[in-house]
């Protein structure tokens, strides 16, 4: 049955790709949404079966192998899917939120032609199919099919409006930056196979679990550290972490539902999922975990500061996504695997909601994305406003919405695992999150409409809808139409309720999600003491530290979030002039942030330009034109030169030929006679 979960969207892709041009929009949209809904149904049934299973060794899993994909020497890779608590959560998120986003897209993309509409939905279905293969795969190579497939779909969908140069550029950028990460992923995979002789997640985990926790105790620890670091490089590419995050903000060139599905809820979390999947490996490589945690928290802070000053509604959300993904990696890095996956799951709800909300705003304003030209939309777009408000509160981490529980879980696990510095940075990032999200909310929905004066940026964006942007009469604003509204409302409900599966013990809950996920993070048959060391210490500290400390920190982080909201309220709602004055006073910092720390420029100067220069100067003019063309032309020249000499022999005089023939015969015969 498991194979149906990815197969259904794949069939949807095939149909829409093959005959979508001839289908009406209603048909294409219905088909694409239908297969996702069916896939969700099957996923839900499978998960229900899984939950009903009696655990073997404390582990529940459904494993189905279909056929041997690769068999060479000691390498045997079956095409097998495995549904365990971790992948079941992912599958539900992908199919569930995926269905809502497909539904939303049916209305959002309605301005496209029939053929474009079908092309859009075929890509979206293909993406869902690959993403499901990624999370269901029971071994690295199967995961890798999905890993590369979602990258491809991401590229196709970012560049969906490929006639717009910036969109096709952004697509290429995403693809190329991801290649860097995938290179690490492949090398990591090879290193693991070299060291452990298998690529099956469970077998790897079992083999690694037998090794001592202390890396100094066994010889191969360097290989494991290197392999996990390389895998993490792959994760930084896919999940937009430093130093490979640069593609994600540009990816906002794609249609907004795509940003919601691929670049917020699902694909970018693949890196987090991959680390969670290999929790045993990573927890046996403490050095890698430290790196993961540091990269995560630095990314969270870094992207948060950029998010403060961006003016494109989707880019603010993109930096927010990068920042939240940083939180997830922080959680992974401090060994709070369940916490990271929990945040992944809640983030999928509220970030998808925020993106879809921003899409509704853009839709209503005919392609306007600059928040400086918005404002006062609260009255005109009530559904969008209220759902967006819920999403904003959820991401800011105000109890009892979803974001609070997951973010607080991460902060607590960070603090209790003795990463006090990282904890502090994460709290600062949480403060920034609340600030920039409420800035976005205020500038978009509150105050008065600042429209008109279409900037050049605006003109560029509005081409996607080819809608008249000349007249922004208030009467023209229409709230999200039916399917979009449904998706927004369902996600808003999700953003409110999703956190309640992980209410911590200190608040009287029993953190079901952690108990549910925990078996996925250890090897089958491994006894309790072989469980990930860091997690164990975290638990121990949690018990020692006592509920009082945890409760105090929780209150503190809530206060920090409220302070962030308060700052945003004062600066961006009550006294907008403060913002301007601050921007003026700290012009240098402001410009640095607005320029996104000039990372793109830095990469351009240090990597792109040198490669271009080497390519054109050395490889093109030197190697290609000089050596390769030189060899080919040189052979020709030598032949021509000799020919010019030798052709003198061909006089055309038959008697001269006969003479040479005669001389030749005499010479040869003479040689044999007088030898």
């Amino acid at each position, binding site marked *: 049955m498991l194979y149906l979960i990815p197969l259904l969207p794949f069939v949807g892709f095939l149909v829409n790709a093959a005959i979508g041009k001839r289908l009406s929009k209603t048909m294409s949209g219905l088909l694409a949404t239908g297969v996702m809904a069916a896939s969700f149904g099957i996923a839900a049934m499978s998960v229900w079966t899984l939950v009903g299973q009696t655990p073997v060794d404390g582990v529940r899993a459904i494993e189905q192998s279909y056929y041997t994909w690769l068999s060479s020497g000691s390498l045997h890779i079956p095409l097998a899917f495995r549904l365990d608590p971790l992948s079941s959560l992912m599958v539900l998120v992908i199919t569930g939120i995926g269905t809502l986003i497909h539904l939303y897209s049916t209305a959002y993309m309605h301005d496209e032609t029939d053929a474009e509409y079908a092309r859009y939905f075929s890509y979206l279905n293909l993406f869902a199919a690959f993403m499901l293969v990624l999370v269901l795969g029971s071994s690295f190579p199967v995961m890798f099919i999905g890993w590369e497939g979602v990258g491809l779909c991401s590229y196709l969908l970012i560049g969906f409006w490929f006639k717009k140069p910036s969109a096709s550029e952004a697509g290429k950028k995403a693809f190329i930056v991801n290649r860097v990460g995938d290179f690490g992923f492949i090398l990591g995979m090879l290193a693991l196979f070299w060291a452990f002789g298998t690529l099956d997640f469970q077998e790897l985990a079992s083999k690694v679990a037998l090794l001592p926790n202390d890396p100094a105790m066994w010889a191969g620890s360097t290989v494991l550290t290197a392999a996990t670091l390389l895998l993490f490089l792959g994760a930084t590419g896919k999940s937009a972490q430093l130093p490979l995050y640069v593609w994600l903000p540009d990816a906002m060139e794609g249609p907004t539902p795509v940003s919601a599905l691929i670049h917020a809820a699902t694909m970018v979390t693949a890196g987090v999922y991959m680390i969670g999947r290999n929790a045993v490996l990573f927890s046996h490589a403490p050095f890698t975990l430290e790196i993961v945690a540091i990269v995560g928290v630095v990314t969270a802070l870094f992207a948060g500061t950029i998010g403060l000053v961006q003016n494109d509604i989707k880019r603010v959300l993109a930096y927010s996504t990068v920042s939240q993904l940083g939180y997830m990696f922080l959680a992974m890095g401090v060994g709070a695997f369940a916490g990271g996956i929990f945040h992944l799951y809640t983030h999928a709800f509220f970030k998808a909601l925020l993106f879809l909300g921003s899409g509704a705003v853009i839709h209503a304003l005919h392609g306007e994305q600059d928040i400086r030209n918005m404002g006062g939309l609260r009255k005109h777009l009530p559904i969008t406003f209220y759902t967006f408000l819920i999403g904003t509160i959820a991401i800011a981490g105000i109890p009892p919405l979803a974001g609070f529980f997951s973010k607080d879980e991460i902060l607590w696990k960070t603090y209790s695992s003795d990463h006090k510095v990282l904890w502090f940075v994460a709290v600062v990032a949480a403060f920034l999150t609340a600030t920039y999200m409420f800035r976005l909310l205020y500038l978009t929905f509150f105050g008065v409409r600042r429209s008109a004066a279409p900037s050049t940026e605006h003109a560029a964006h509005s081409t996607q809808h080819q809608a008249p942007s000349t007249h922004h009469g208030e009467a023209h604003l229409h709230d999200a139409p039916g399917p979009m509204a449904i998706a927004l409302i369902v996600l808003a409900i999700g953003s409110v309720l999703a956190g309640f599966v992980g209410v911590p013990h200190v608040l009287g809950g029993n953190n079901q999600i952690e108990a549910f996920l925990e078996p996925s993070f250890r090897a089958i048959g491994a006894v309790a003491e072989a469980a990930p060391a860091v997690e164990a210490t975290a638990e121990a500290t949690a018990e020692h530290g006592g509920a009082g400390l945890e409760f105090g920190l929780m209150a503190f982080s809530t206060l920090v979030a409220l302070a962030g909201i308060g700052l945003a309220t004062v600066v961006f709602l009550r006294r907008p002039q403060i913002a301007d004055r601050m921007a003026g006073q700290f012009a240098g910092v402001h410009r640095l942030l607005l320029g996104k720390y000039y990372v793109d420029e830095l990469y351009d100067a240090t990597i792109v330009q040198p490669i271009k220069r080497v390519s054109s100067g050395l490889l093109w003019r030197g190697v290609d034109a000089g050596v390769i063309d030189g060899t080919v032309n040189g052979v020709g020249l030598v032949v021509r030169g000799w020919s010019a000499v030798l*052709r003198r022999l061909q*006089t*055309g*005089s*038959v*008697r001269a030929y*006969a*003479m040479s023939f005669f001389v030749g015969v005499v010479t040869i015969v003479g040689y044999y006679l007088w030898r």
Partner: protein
Amino acid sequence: MLPEPTLNSYLMLSAVLFAIGTAGVFLRRNIITILLSVEVMLNAVNLTFIAVDRFRGLVDGQIMVFFVITVAAAEAAVGLAIVIALFRHKETLTPDVFTSLKW
């Protein structure tokens, strides 16, 4: 009474004939004469075949001679036809004029 001819004397005669033919091919300035010289060379070879066969008591060479005579007849027919064509073309029979078979 002349001495009985030996194989050697036949071969000498044949060599002399061949040399005369070769000299004719290279030295004469008339294509028809050159063709005649080629015939002399062919017949020098024929004589060698016959002489060797006669003294060794074989027949293979004699069979070969029939082939050579046939080929020589064909060559004379085709060669003379070509000579006529060449003459019509350039109004001369000097072989050095016909040098268009070159670069």
